[in-house]
């Protein structure tokens, strides 16, 4: 990550990963990545990071939070019927 090219690449990285970078710049980045292992790793691990976060399972709603939610919405009657539905 010392060379100017690497830093320059960093500026366009988010757009590159989101597919919103124009084609000329994409090709520039890909050409650079072919020769620069560090940038290749950064791009790949950055994509992986986003994927891991995107697929991060949401924790279950804690039981007490769920119960108070239903009560605050006057939906106590439905508290048990749905509980084991997942």
């Amino acid at each position, binding site marked *: *990550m010392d060379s100017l090219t690497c*830093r320059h690449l*960093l500026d366009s*990285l*988010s*757009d590159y*990963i*989101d597919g*919103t970078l124009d084609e000329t710049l994409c090709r520039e980045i890909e050409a650079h990545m072919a020769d620069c*292992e*560090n940038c290749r*790793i*950064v791009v*790949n*691990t*950055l994509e*992986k*990071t*986003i994927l*891991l*976060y*995107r697929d*991060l*399972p*949401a*924790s*279950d*709603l804690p039981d007490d*939070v*769920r119960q*108070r*939610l*239903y009560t*605050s*919405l*006057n*939906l106590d*009657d*439905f508290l048990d*019927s*749905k509980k084991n*539905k997942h």
Partner: protein
Amino acid sequence: MSGHNHSDEQQLVARLKAGDQAAYAELVEQHAGRIYNLALRMLGDETLAEDVLQETFLNAFRAIDRFEGRSSLGTWLYRIANNAALMHLRKREPTTYSLDEPLETDSGEEVPRQFFDFCCLPERDLLSEEARREMLTAIDDLPETLRVVFLLRDIEGLSTRETAEQLNLSVSAVKTRLMRARLALRERLADYFAQSATSAETGGTLPSLS
């Protein structure tokens, strides 16, 4: 959002508008978990996250008559939740907290330093409970201005433009913050996986390098 098709959703909306309590419960059951998690990540506080959760559904039930179906019910609901969470953020630090505050341009900080390639680690490492906790802590440790952008854009899946609108930011500010957030999280995960790979190695035999 989920696997519900269009006509299922239209039916649910019709029942909600008719005041069907079972439909309310259905909506809550489908979305409460994700909304609570989002609010918890944004605010870092369980009590406030619970307030946001309750406010979201109260507001949604009150406003359901005005729901026009231009977006999905889920998207609509998350927008209400985001607004409620953002309101709490602004309330908490009204003087010091502004999403428009200029970012300190400490450019060295976002330059990658850790080049451990964790892409090809086995799933049991990438998806372990410990890794999951590390990922969540890493979000919590981001500066608020970056964290909110990352949550809306990459976790909630809003577009850059939608994120900008929600936060009253320019599109380019969203892009800059998103990139900094992503790079910071990548660095953190790369450090974490590099360390856990090292400790796994010292515990057993070294894998041969090709």
